[in-house]
């Protein structure tokens, strides 16, 4: 019987065939820790009695949620992180280069077929290059740092097959929001998602990232794309035979197969305050808005900023709307500067911020208050995420968000 991608990755890692439901211990290829949780990882690690990291080069520490510090206490996280890096001989640290999930693939830490864990739920992102990556808590992270291993339950796989050409106004974000709406917030809990079909084959790695990033919003353990030529180019590698084989076999067992025709997708939004509360933008048209946020590990990439700039070019953001644009990394910031994207956005009236998590996690730049409405390109619209619990957060694609910024109300792009 054939295997799904996740079954192949786990098999390659432990050296024996596995089936869904089996509990196995895997060897971890890479771990990511971010600034919010480093103090807890550090104290748990020492409390557990470890004195060295199993392989310091496999650990990456990234400051992003708290960068630059907006509260005095945030600096404690940086101090503890810096001490930890020094004490345990870590070399991979990024203090202001961008969002962890962007940097892990952009800076080359993750390759196809890797098994990666991070102290952040959106660690599912690295499935965009065919890596099994998932979020864990800080206690488990501490135990991996000591042992290099973690137990996992081999997940069943839901296959999502998308064929055809997407309409002009539809982005990867609309696809993943539609899928989350169809699956529900727990529709893929404990399961792997596997994306196939010519629509995803034709997508950029950046678009695939947007989709694997949000898979957790349907509860998924990971979201995998088969590595291909685009992946190889993005990762700066030539695919090995093993990596080329990371494709679901024709006779693999899927617990569910979902088919979509690309032509049938429309721009959608996730309405307050659940990510699976998804509606076509046409049903929401006319609602007044106060702010627009374009950024995050979901939609802060160059293609996202360029898509927004294309719509905003020569136009002005509505006078009462604040448009906040946050590139996902320094590299993206530089590229968007060089190709003129940031200038277009600035001329249209955007507030352009430093690369970081920014408003997505409600820590800096653009907190809202009771009754205000924000159109945001990030991945969560939970109560209280961007200010008070009475803020209305609508999640949308960068194109939709840019169109709304101009009109000052919800419109379809």
């Amino acid at each position, binding site marked *: 019987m054939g295997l799904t991608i996740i079954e192949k990755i786990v098999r390659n890692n432990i050296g024996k065939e596995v089936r869904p439901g089996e*509990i196995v211990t895997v060897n971890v290829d890479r771990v990511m820790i971010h600034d*919010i*949780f480093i103090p*807890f990882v550090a104290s*748990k690690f020492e*409390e*557990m*009695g*470890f004195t060295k990291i199993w392989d310091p080069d496999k650990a990456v520490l990234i400051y992003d949620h*708290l960068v630059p510090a907006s*509260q005095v*206490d*945030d600096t404690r*996280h940086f101090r503890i992180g810096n001490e930890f890096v020094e004490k345990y001989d870590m070399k991979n640290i990024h203090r202001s280069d961008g969002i962890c999930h962007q940097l892990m693939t952009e800076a080359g830490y993750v390759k196809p077929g890797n098994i990666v864990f*991070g*102290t*952040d*739920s959106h*660690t599912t992102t690295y499935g965009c290059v065919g890596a099994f990556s*998932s*979020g*864990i*808590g*800080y*206690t*488990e992270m*501490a*135990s991996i740092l*000591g*042992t290099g291993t973690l*137990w996992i339950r081999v997940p069943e796989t839901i296959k999502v097959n998308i064929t055809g050409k997407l309409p002009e106004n539809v982005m990867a974000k609309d696809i993943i929001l539609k899928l989350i709406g169809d699956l529900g*917030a*727990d529709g893929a*809990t*404990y399961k792997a998602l596997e994306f196939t079909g010519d629509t995803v084959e034709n997508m950029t790695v950046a678009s695939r990232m947007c989709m694997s990033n949000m898979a957790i919003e349907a*509860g998924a*353990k990971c979201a995998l794309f088969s590595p291909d030529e685009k992946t190889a180019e993005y990762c700066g590698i030539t695919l090995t035979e093993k990596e080329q084989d990371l494709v679901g076999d024709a006779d693999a067992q899927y617990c569910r197969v979902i088919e979509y025709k690309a032509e049938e997708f429309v721009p959608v939004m996730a309405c307050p305050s*659940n990510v699976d509360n998804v509606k076509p933008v046409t049903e929401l048209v006319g609602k007044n808005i106060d702010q627009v946020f374009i950024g995050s590990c979901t939609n802060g990439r160059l293609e996202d900023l360029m898509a927004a700039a294309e719509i905003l070019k020569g136009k002005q953001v509505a006078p009462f709307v604040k448009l906040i644009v946050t590139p996902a990394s320094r590299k993206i910031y530089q590229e968007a500067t060089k190709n003129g994207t940031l200038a277009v956005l600035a001329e249209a009236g955007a507030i352009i911020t430093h690369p970081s998590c920014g408003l997505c*996690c*409600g*820590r800096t730049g653009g907190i809202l208050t009771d009754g205000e409405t924000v159109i945001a390109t990030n991945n*969560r619209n*939970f*109560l*209280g*995420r961007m200010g008070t*619990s009475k803020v209305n957060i609508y999640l949308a694609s960068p194109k939709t968000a840019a169109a709304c910024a101009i009109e000052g109300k919800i419109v379809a792009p």
Partner: protein
Amino acid sequence: MNQFTGKIWILGDDIDTDIIIPTEYLALKTVQDMAPYAFSPLRPELAGQIKEGDIIVAGKNFGCGSSREQAPEIIKALGIQCVIAKSFARIFFRNAINNGLLLIENDQLQDAVKEGEEITVILNKAIEYHENQYPITSLPQNLVDILNAGGLVKAMQKLNSAKDCTI
């Protein structure tokens, strides 16, 4: 302890980790500092009302959202003995076990009970409410081992002290 009785608090479906503890309080120094803000976006008064030994009964997908481990830690710090839900989100499930917080999956209890009533949990067997029993399944052995050790930190301490002895 094979069985215990506690007063229940009822929560709905999809109780996410931003509800359990909003991001703005995550940078507070200790879990004890954060505990008063638990569930504040949904029910600001709840954290102050929960007493040692109480039980949370919730709907499906409890603990969905971020990987913040403070979520189960805070629930434990409030004195909650166990959380019974129709289902749990994956990361929350792992984090709870790793911190020694007992989770029980059951999808029938929610429609029968009312907030403030008492239920009895008989481990690996059933939940008792009035005259009714709701069967529950037992956890896989590797998770029981972590719970029995008192959480993952203690399990790793055991591992490391065993290593020291062999040197």
